[in-house]
């Protein structure tokens, strides 16, 4: 126990790797064995995170459970781990969603071993981003997560669908989506990589807490330019890399493709956790490293966020593909996260900023739950009908009442119905941003209206209206395993909606200290 507590973060970070290695040694034709071993192993990081959650002292400021070992001596980079309230929430989200996603993948039959191994590597990459307090290793894990995701989309993505690329050449849609995802994100990270190199070259260290001090106290000229200009450029390099990942309008175009083509569990993790990496980057790095620049450009960021909210909702409303509809809803919901961050950047240190940031972090967690749930539900019906076209469904409620109930519940959480989790976080963001960006927030309300519209459209097309006779007798009800995936999500949605203070107190502690 002593050992576990002393190395808790290292253990959380590397148990997925260990799980991947264990899976490698299982016989590849034993599908059942691999599935269950993977599921059980994926519970270990979750249990460790629960220990972390209860051992975490909410009253202490700063990072806890810190560990530091030299990794790359010549660059003065060290393996430095630590959690505060923000990263703790994200780690909980990651380790919670991974077992559920693995459970959701039980219907996969093709090369299940490689699939599970990639999934664990993906989990490690995401956890590394949330846990690292070293800029270089932050980037290492940031990039590393791309690789498993690329292969998950490229190899296990939906088999139907083609995309025409230039010169009339037709390639499978999943190839198109995975390459777009990879190249888009890598190109976006290029500026981040260069900025990180520059910061390291200037500061001589990659340790994030140290950089908060040394990088901010820099003055004079760098590379023949005033420091403020260099910082502004570096700010945008960071901001664009993270904005692509969030994604903020107009950098979101990779997302609908990647989400739509990814296997169900991949979409769950993509929407549930990967998008949070971008928002987390803003919170952990951009705001503390560039407070002045962030304040200066906060208006622009808020504008982009409002655009994401409105256009995300409108685009979502315009979709006929159920999965694409849910994918665009992510753009819409993540817009609120960015709006909260922008408001906080503008009014650093005020009460309103704190409220907005609390809302933003909680919205990250909530969107993780509801988006994962929605994608899973889309996957459930797709597996049965082999279509995602909303016009092919219709009036399915009498055929699959349990599924219908769960779908409506999750949709309502996503919509922001009071009493469920989405309402709390969106309200906090709006309440915090209103005094800071009144007009933008008012515009975002329009977006919220369309959120209602597309969610109701989804429900209506699938469950209500005239029954599509084609499905009578061909559609089976959601099974026990699938319900089991949804139960933790539903419980959390309800719990946060009714009594959010258990998680908000953890978030607020970190927010109050940093901002």
């Amino acid at each position, binding site marked *: 126990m002593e050992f576990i507590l002393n190395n808790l973060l290292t253990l959380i970070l590397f148990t997925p790797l260990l799980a991947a290695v264990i899976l490698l040694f299982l016989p590849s034709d034993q599908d059942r064995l691999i599935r269950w071993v993977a599921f059980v192993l994926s519970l270990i990081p979750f249990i460790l995170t629960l220990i972390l959650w209860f051992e975490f002292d909410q009253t202490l400021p700063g990072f806890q459970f810190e560990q530091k070992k*030299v*990794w*790359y*001596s*010549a*660059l003065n980079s060290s393996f430095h781990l630590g959690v505060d309230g923000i990263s703790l929430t994200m780690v909980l989200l990651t380790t919670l969603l991974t077992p559920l996603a693995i459970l959701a993948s039980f219907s996969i039959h093709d090369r299940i071993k490689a699939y599970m191994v990639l999934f664990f590597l993906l989990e490690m990459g995401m956890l590394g981003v949330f846990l690292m307090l070293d800029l*270089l290793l932050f*980037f*290492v*894990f*940031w*990039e*590393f997560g791309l*690789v498993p995701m*690329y292969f998950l989309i*490229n*190899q296990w993505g939906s088999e139907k669908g083609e995309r025409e690329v230039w010169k009339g050449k037709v390639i499978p849609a999943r*190839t198109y989506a995975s*390459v777009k995802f*990879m*190249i888009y994100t*890598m*190109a976006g990270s*290029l500026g981040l*990589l*260069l900025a990180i*190199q*520059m910061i*390291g*070259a*200037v500061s001589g260290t990659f340790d994030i807490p140290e950089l908060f001090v040394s990088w901010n106290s820099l003055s004079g000229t760098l*590379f*023949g330019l005033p420091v403020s200009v260099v910082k502004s450029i570096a700010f945008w390099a960071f901001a664009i890399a993270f904005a692509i990942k969030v994604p903020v309008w107009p950098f979101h175009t990779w997302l609908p493709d990647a989400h739509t083509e990814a296997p169900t569990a991949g979409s769950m993790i993509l929407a549930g956790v990967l998008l949070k990496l971008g928002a987390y980057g803003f919170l952990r790095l951009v705001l503390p490293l560039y407070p002045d620049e962030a304040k200066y450009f906060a208006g622009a960021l808020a504008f982009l966020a409002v655009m994401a909210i409105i256009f995300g909702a409108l685009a979502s409303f315009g979709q006929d593909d159920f999965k694409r509809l849910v994918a665009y809803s992510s753009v819409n919901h993540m817009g609120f996260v960015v709006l909260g961050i922008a408001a906080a950047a503008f009014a650093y240190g005020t009460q309103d900023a704190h409220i907005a940031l609390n809302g933003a972090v909680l919205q990250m967690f909530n969107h993780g739950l509801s988006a994962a749930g929605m994608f899973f539900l889309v996957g459930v019906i797709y597996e049965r009908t082999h279509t995602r076209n909303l016009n092919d469904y219709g009036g399915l409620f009498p055929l699959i009442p349990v599924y219908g109930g769960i779908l409506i519940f999750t949709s309502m959480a996503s919509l922001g119905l009071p009493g469920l989790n989405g309402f709390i976080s969106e309200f906090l963001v709006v309440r915090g941003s209103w005094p800071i960006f009144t007009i933008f927030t008012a515009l975002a309300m329009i977006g919220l209206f369309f959120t209602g519209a597309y969610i109701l459209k989804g429900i209506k097309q699938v469950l209500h209206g005239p029954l599509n006779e084609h499905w009578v007798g061909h559609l089976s009800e959601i099974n026990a395993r699938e319900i089991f995936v949804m139960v933790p999500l539903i419980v959390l949605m309800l719990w946060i909606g009714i009594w959010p203070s258990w998680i908000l107190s953890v978030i607020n502690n970190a927010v109050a200290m940093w901002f």
Partner: protein
Amino acid sequence: MQFPILSIIVFTPIIAGLLILLIPAERKTEIRMAALAAGAIAMLLSLWAYFSYDIAVGGYQFIEKYSWLPALGISYQVGIDGMNAPLVLLTGIVMFTGVMISWGIDDRPREFFAFLFILATGVFGVFVSLDLFMLFFFYEIAVFPMYLLISIWGWKVTREYAAMKLTLYLFIGSVVALVGALVMYFTSGMGTFDMLALENANFSVTFQRIVFPFVFFGFAVLGGIFPFHNWSPDGHVAAPTAVSMFHAGVLMKLGAFAALRVGIMLLPEGAKFHMPWIIVLTLVNVVYGAFIASVQTDFKYVIGFSSVSHMGLVSMGFATLNSTGMLGAGLQMLSHGVMTALFFAVVGMVYDQAHTREIPSLGGFRKVMPLVAIAFIIGGLVSMGMPGFSGFIAEFPIFVGLWNGQPAWLWNGYAWVAIIAAISIVITASYIIRIISRVFFGQLPSEFEGHVHDVATLDKVALVFLSAIMIIMGVYPSIIVPLVQSGVDHVMRLLGGA
């Protein structure tokens, strides 16, 4: 007297090569076994030398010195420091794995291995030589067998052309460098070719500035520097697999290393003066090489041009003339050597089965050779500088070195070089992804159905071995960084601590 480990490493291959020639030609298995044994000995000894090098003491170790031609001040002198120890290890690794994947060579394997081993001796010799004359001596030994290996065992379509082109390029380069070296020998007035002595020769600044380009470019031709890179993709493609591995994996490092050892270390003032414009050439290497690689349709040409691009990063690291950049260059030499050896091995395996290297006509090879696909993906990730693999820990310091760079004149910092060079990362990612998805994924063309098979066990061992090195380096850089850093410190002292 201490155990002459370096001499044994240098001469094991050539002696083994000569012994192999004594084995009757038809006893192919014995020939191969003997070759493998020699490769194993060389690799184990270089591993031993690598790990028993004492970083705390630093400097040149395992030094051996015998007078060779005292009248001219030539002596056989060898030693390793942090800069060449990884390269010796690299040569051992490539030699060992090269033998493993050449197991299937059926056309005169005896002569093939003999020439390959003469080549290996030349390469080992250049890396460990501390005497300028001996360095040239081994350098020519390394270049000559290359000609025969390519023109006899190479790809039938271009082998004569490529072998001729390669040899002429390299000979011209070495002649130019030799002229520079002779000028240094006479001007120093010390009557010695001992490089440790020449390091303290105090050449005048003007002299250094005039001679430096000759020496540097003479060797850098072999390092594939733009615009003299042209021989290398042709040479890579025409060579048989094991020779390509040697060629891209080790020989190109030979050029970069000699340019450092003779050019930068002996003529530091010249280096400071010329590097600000040479860095532009290396930038062209990096970006242009990546672009050219991305439009090739021949699998092997893609890898050939990617080597040009990646070797550009090595010269770029040297050109920064600061500690971080040099460190990155040192690491990149090892990382790229292992990576490209793996690439060429994979290309060879695919070609042996498919008898074509045209990317559009390949596909679905992961189904028949899953391990090869995984190995190529790992190499590809190294190539695109993906964190967690050796490419990242090598390229990152090169870029940091650029950000830290303080050119002697011409530019106000190298920040713009870093920004432009970063483009190559995305280009590299795009062509690697293209190969992965076109060659290894997708549908296996029907004409290959039943005709292509998985590779032999020895091939797999070689691939796993190479992949493991890249992952270990990437995850745990401390295994190599302090060693290379100690070598870089020596270079930095010669450059005036800058």
